[in-house]
């Protein structure tokens, strides 16, 4: 590789890393406990679901209309916004708010046992795990924060790609896996940075790319609602939004949707006027019936007043990619062994980021030429201390 080419890629690697490293360290550190959020929450609150015998709330139990009425009573009025189903236990959640388009901080989440119809209490979105998730998602800055972290994710992918390009000249005369710890601290850091960076390549790319897609979750949902979903309900164009007082039975709507697509299990319902539905429909989101497609949801739009099915269509490819990228980003889908590996890979990535930072901080005075020589010779020139 030409020195000029190495120089260009070195500058790409250096600047993409300098801008993003502190944010990536924050994401790795906050992401580490988030991998185990199920286990940590079960430890803190007791395993609510395990102590609830009965069929899954997605398939059977007390009428949804009854559960929603109880939730609104607990909320002291207002309107229902979402119903969330469990595929394993009778646990069911109802989100309520003051208006159909209520902001996230105006929403309250109530949980019930659908088999008995009893309230299991309000779920408060607070505590350490919630704090970490907010920090990790948007740094408490809402959509601008999410998009900013998405850009940091893009720089992470650029840093990985340029790092792989620089790996080639660096390793030209070095055996794979070389870790020279007995020479200078700089050579030791270079070797750890290179080896850990290159073995975690596949995982880091997957987590980086799925993180970027997740950062665009809100705009992608908006574009689905304004594009594909608007097409599904073209007949309603120009009609005023349906008043919550005229909402019909949710159970009738569910029966109509299930008749159209028997065998599929619902995951959640978006109520009229919210981000996940139209102004006229109950949007019932069904999971696919194979393990892979269970991560991909298909909405059935049911007229909220008449309970008749309007349409049921797959979501656009980008929205499907978003749904598949969630488990791939959080690593919470393959059981405890995969989670533990996820944690080790996360720690390895922190080590790559920290050694990279040290490599940049040290020997800054020597300039770019010394760095390029160091890469071109596998650390033989420019690394002696």
């Amino acid at each position, binding site marked *: 590789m030409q020195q000029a080419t190495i120089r260009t890629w070195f500058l790409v690697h250096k600047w993409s890393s300098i801008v993003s490293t502190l944010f990536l360290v924050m994401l790795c550190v906050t992401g580490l406990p988030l991998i185990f959020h199920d286990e940590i929450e079960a430890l803190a609150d007791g395993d609510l679901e395990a102590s609830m015998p009965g069929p899954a709330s997605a398939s059977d139990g007390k009428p949804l209309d009854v559960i929603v009425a109880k939730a609104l009573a607990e909320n002291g009025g207002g309107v229902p916004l979402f119903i969330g189903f469990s595929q394993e236990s009778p646990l069911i959640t109802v989100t309520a708010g003051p208006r159909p388009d209520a902001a996230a901080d105006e929403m309250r989440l109530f949980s019930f046992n659908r088999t008995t119809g009893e309230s299991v209490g309000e779920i408060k979105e607070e505590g350490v795990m919630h704090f970490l998730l907010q920090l990790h998602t948007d740094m408490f800055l809402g959509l601008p924060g999410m998009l900013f972290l998405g850009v940091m994710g893009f720089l992470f992918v650029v840093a990985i790609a340029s790092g792989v390009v620089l790996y*080639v000249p660096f390793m030209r005369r070095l055996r794979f896996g070389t870790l020279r710890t007995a020479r200078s601290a700089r050579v030791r850091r270079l070797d750890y940075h290179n080896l850990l960076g290159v073995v975690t390549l596949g995982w880091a790319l997957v987590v980086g790319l799925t993180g970027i897609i997740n950062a665009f979750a809100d705009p992608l949902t908006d574009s689905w609602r304004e594009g594909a979903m608007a097409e599904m309900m073209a007949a309603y164009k120009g009609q005023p939004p349906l008043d919550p007082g005229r909402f019909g039975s949710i159970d009738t709507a569910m029966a109509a949707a299930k008749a159209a697509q028997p065998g599929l299990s619902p995951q959640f319902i978006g109520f009229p006027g919210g981000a996940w539905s139209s102004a006229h429909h109950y949007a019932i989101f069904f999971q696919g019936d194979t393990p892979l497609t269970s991560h991909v949801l298909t909405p059935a739009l049911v007229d909220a007043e008449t309970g008749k099915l309007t349409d049921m269509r797959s979501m656009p490819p980008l929205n499907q990619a978003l749904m598949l990228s969630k488990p791939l980003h959080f690593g919470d889908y393959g059981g405890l062994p995969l989670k533990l590996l996820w944690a080790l890979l996360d720690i390895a990535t922190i080590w790559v980021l920290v050694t990279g930072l040290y490599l940049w901080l040290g020997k800054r005075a020597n300039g770019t030429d010394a760095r390029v020589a160091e890469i071109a010779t596998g650390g033989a020139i420019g690394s002696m201390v």
Partner: protein
Amino acid sequence: MKRRADRIGQQSVVRIVAVPAVLAAASLAGLVLGLTGEGWRDALSAILVFLPLAVFARHWSRRG
């Protein structure tokens, strides 16, 4: 046991990226396989995702 020399003759690009490419492919295959089902798929998924860490551990144990 005498350690093998770290510094060797010039290698081709293919030779340099071969092991990293295999490890990255194993990670990708493992991560996607875990999404497709339970049981043996989860076990094989974990083994494939573990492979890069195992390779690092082996070289770390023989570090110079």
